[in-house]
């Protein structure tokens, strides 16, 4: 029966991983702008002119 404790701890660890991912996503500014990415997604691929892109 004690094995359930181990299971709980493992699943909590996994859940903590997701929490960390959430905190990281907010921290790197992914939620700062929720409007523009929705518009960007509709742009088609664009052929830059022959100069190299400086990105």
């Amino acid at each position, binding site marked *: *029966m004690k094995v359930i404790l181990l299971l*709980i*701890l493992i699943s909590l660890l996994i859940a903590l991983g997701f929490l960390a991912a959430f905190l990281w996503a907010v921290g790197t500014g992914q939620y700062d*702008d929720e409007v*523009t990415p929705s518009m960007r997604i509709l*742009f088609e691929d664009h052929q*830059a002119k022959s100069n190299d892109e400086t990105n």
Partner: protein
Amino acid sequence: MTTPVAPSPTTRALSCTHCGEHCETEAVIENGHSFCCAGCASVYQILHDNELLSFYHIDDNAGRTQQDNQHSDYSWLEVPKLADRLIRYRDEQRCHVSIELPAIHCASCIWLLERLHELLPGVRSCTINFARKEALIVFDPQQTTLRTVAEMLHRIGYPPHLRAHAEEPGKRTDRSLIYRIGVAGFCFGNIMLLSFPEYFGWGADAGAGQVGGAVNYLMLVLSLPVVFYAGSGFLTAAYHALSARRVTIDLPIVIGMSALFLRSAYEIVAGTGAGYLDSLAGLVFFLLIGRWFQSHTFARLNFERDYHDYFPVAAQRLQADGTTTPVASEDLQPGDTILVRPGKLIPADGRLTAAAPAGIDYSFVTGERDPQPAVVGKEVFAGGRALANPLPIEITKATNQSYLLQLWLNERKEDAEATVAPPQQLTLIFTIAILVLATLTFSYWYPTDEATAFRAATAVLIIACPCALALAAPFAYGTLQRLFANSAFYFRDPAAIRTLATANAFVFDKTGTLMGQPDHEPVSFFRKTPATLAVFRAMAEQSTHPRSRGLAQALKKHGTTPATIGPVEEIPGGGLRLLHQKQEYLLGSAAFCGLEAPHGKTYCMVDGEKVLALHPANTLLRPGVDAMLVALQKEEGATYLISGDHHPKSNIWEEYLTPDRIHFRQSPFDKRDFITKLRESGKKVLMIGDGINDAGALIAADIGLAVNEDEANFNPACDGVIKGDLLHALPLVLRTARRLRLVLFLTYTLAFAYNIIGLSYAVTGTLSPVVAAILMPLSSISVMIVAVVGASIIYKSDEYHFPG
């Protein structure tokens, strides 16, 4: 964007390839494309050369007319000291700068601007934030400069608005609240799951005992971040409030949190129970959500503008040899001489060292439309705009001592709370009531059964949920704030709506607020000879007087092309005179043209014969505003008009307002003092204005609303922004804001009902974790729902419908 004017039979129906507007006869034509102006042609050319013509396919209204896009001087960006103020980060290879581009309006703009690197090699990236109309540009300082970037942006039709200082990057996004909600939610969910066996009595057989204890400790560990991180905001707020001897809603919240935590910790360590940690985590979680809900702001509007947004960042210092060098406006000292070019704003107070017959336009700051004449030695003030003549000025005061700056130095009102909390008395009564009840319960049980005494007393403290109380107002006002925004009434925060509901004195500015933009001036023609009209158009275009501009516009609409003429003689206070092909052309007031006619119209004469008369601009009252004023006056009484303009000849305002409530010739300071006096007499003042000249008054009022024509314009610092055409709906807004108090009453009643139910369990010592865990989220969620639904019903229920 204006719809294209229907082509008259004399002009061909050409529309600009770039912006789609109607091309006048002097359209620029290149390679089979027509453009309404050189600006549009130039943008198209740039896009064409860089293979970026997809710009036009992404959005139908991609291009905007460049006719009003005047040349701007970015030379001051070469001064490292000035440029550095805008730069957020800089090293050898990269330089980060955030620039506001008010012209962003569609997906095409994003598409094009994010390809800035294709137009300008030194740019590494450009990321647009559409809601804020901002570009975050990273460029290589070795390859290009901030000035070049600014100029390129201007050339493609997105002139940058550069402030004196870059805004603090951390200021805007408040991420800490999101982190806390995340952590609290995580802990809440997990604690609740771990509590399930406890609720349903599962696993009460052998083996569960040992596990149960360990799980309880696990829950205790999970509750620590809830109390000490996520909930720390409440703890510190309650501490500060107590030390200031005030009672805020944080106090009962902290009492509840402590009771929950301490009792649960005791039970778990002593092994007597599982505690109430799920209620604790839930309490903190829902309260934080309430905080988040009422922190909603409109990214594209700025309610905090101060003078830095309007006054020029850099000035041109005049050297001995007549050339100018850029210098920061704030570095100007008394004794410096600067030159203000036509169309630019004066950065600091000073004295003119040369005459400016065309005058200075102070409409920006005082609302006075007519230009003020300016002679040598005349005092000039920061905020005035130079007209046709450049203004050499000797500075007498540093920029931060400007006369008009005093308008902004008025501190905002003391209790400018952005959050709506329940009224202080209610909170106080609530806190005292639960403390008294807890004590009574304790003393009742103590003689009989010690254990029950503690249990019951702490149960009272636990279940008396301030959380419903704390959530009602934020959700009700917050919902209304969002709903109002759908009808283009933007309030800076929910508390502004609450203040609005209490307003009992209403002060309106005139020009730009009650009255809309002037219509195009109508012209009556006496003669229509094209050649003559052509000369007049050319004459009018040489002058920057508003009447001349109006005439030039009217003639342009009529289809006249300007003739080529020699220099025009401008007689200040009179008009224009030109000798052309042996004929004398006069353009000016009736007196100037030697006519016996009422003052007001502008005439054009050739050799003593009338050619045309330009009627004064027909500034119209905004639609519905007359009915609104009458209604306000009748229902509320205290309605006032204050204006910087001259007293008009025919006082139409007396039809709507009593004469003693109408004031003209009010300077921005007069306006502010008027509001302050009204407030001192005990009124709650609502001020409605539109420009800088109202800034002082808007700040001084209990609640200040700014009227805006177009989102791209700037509004002064205020508590809310209304679109001009919707001003007539103000009484509706008032009524709705006031009705909301009904919803609040309902939600507070609901909250108390839950408390009564919970307390009945608590005082008998029979409050189990299950009951607490059910009641607390149930009360919070139902209060939230009632608040939101109630606010929506109130919003939609009025007889008239909200516009938009």
